[in-house]
């Protein structure tokens, strides 16, 4: 049921982004995302994620400034193997441990493009929410936590058009920060996205 909601929200955001391109042109970015956990996230999972995908739609509101929206999905996973842990001073448990963290960032963003000729570097920030679900497995049993976190994602990137066509290559680095909620911890990771853009 949760996945249904996420899918609908992704479609919603994409549609909103489309409608913001009344005039002035814009950029669509499609990137494959990597995630490198830092801070409290690296206490939970240390391994990098290479399972991430993002769609980002931006419209130029001035010559250099864009406003848009983004939807993405990132999966973090680590297999810890056999562990023996103390639950408390007198209780110990042994089992086969794995952890998952599933993240869906949904954000609006604004970016400033510098226009020196063939390259289009930019800086910007996204603001929105991260839906994060964590699962801590031992054998067939797991502890699951999920929450919608407020989030910020400052970003720098580069879009390089292929000659005079509308297509471009794009790369970005983003610091993803999801705030802590009443019941769950904050999460943060560095995202690196590589992909293609459509500039119009």
């Amino acid at each position, binding site marked *: 049921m949760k*996945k*249904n909601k*996420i*899918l609908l929200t*992704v*479609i919603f955001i*994409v*549609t909103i982004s*489309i409608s913001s391109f009344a005039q002035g042109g814009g950029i*669509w970015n*499609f990137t494959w995302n990597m995630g490198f956990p830092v801070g409290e996230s690296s206490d939970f999972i240390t391994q990098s994620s290479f*399972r*991430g*995908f993002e*769609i980002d*739609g931006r419209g130029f509101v001035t010559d250099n400034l864009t406003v848009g929206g983004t*939807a993405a*999905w990132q*999966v973090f*996973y680590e297999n810890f193997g056999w562990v*023996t842990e103390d639950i408390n*001073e*007198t*209780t*110990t*448990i*042994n*089992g*086969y441990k*794995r952890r*998952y963290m599933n993240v869906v960032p949904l954000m609006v963003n604004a970016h400033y493009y510098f226009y020196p000729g063939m390259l289009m570097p930019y800086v910007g920030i996204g603001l929105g929410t991260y839906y994060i679900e964590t699962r801590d*497995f*031992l*054998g*067939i*049993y797991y502890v699951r936590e999920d929450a919608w976190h407020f989030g910020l994602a400052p970003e720098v990137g580069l879009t390089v058009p292929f000659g005079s066509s509308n297509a471009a290559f794009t790369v970005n680095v983003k610091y993803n920060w999801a705030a802590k909620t009443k019941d769950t911890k904050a999460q943060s990771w560095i995202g690196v996205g590589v992909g293609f853009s*459509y500039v119009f």
Partner: protein
Amino acid sequence: MKRLFFNLSIALLAIAGGVILHGCYPNDAISVSETDIVLTGYYDSVDFKTLSTYYLPDTVFPVRDDTTDKSPVPNSDLIISEIAKNMEAYGYTRVYYSDTVTKEPDLMMAVAAITVTTVSVGWWYPYYPGWGWGWGWYKKAPRETKYWYGGYPGYYPPGWGWGGVPYYSTYTTGTLLMEMTNPVDYRVIDNDTVVPLYWAGGLNGVLSSGSNTSRITGDIDQAFTQSPYLKTN
């Protein structure tokens, strides 16, 4: 027109991306032996070094709804002998029923086994990567009846594509409980006689249709390995 077509393909790409990524999800298939959990706990006011003898029954007690079912627990002898082996390694002496009349053992051990069968129901849609999962959890210990639970049929009603093909899968988990008490250490609380558990160990795992013996012995050994405070030697 071109713009509309383009925008529509963006929306489809978003959906496609989600579906493809679902396929990329880390495959977490684990083997049956990787489902094993060993949990131990103890009463920290006890100094186990002062204890030396224990009583262990010669069969494992099956916990069953149907109390007329007197069939033995599979691998009962192996379980008892493995526990006895570990206790001896930790410096304990086993006393038998005929001896208990003259010398009361310091510890009484009870060993019980329970099996639980879980049935899950899902619908498989041929064109879609199986999001229509209906998990049917029903734990009914310990009779091995297959209980049918109608889980929800996923997103698409029958008639989209072909309509779904239901499938069932079951698995049985086995739990072994080992408990240690001191027969002379009891308290009366609110007119109830309460005996504190000095030590408890539990093993749980999905039973394989083949042999489970190496897992049983390995997990019993692990329960004692993670309880070094039991040592008297």
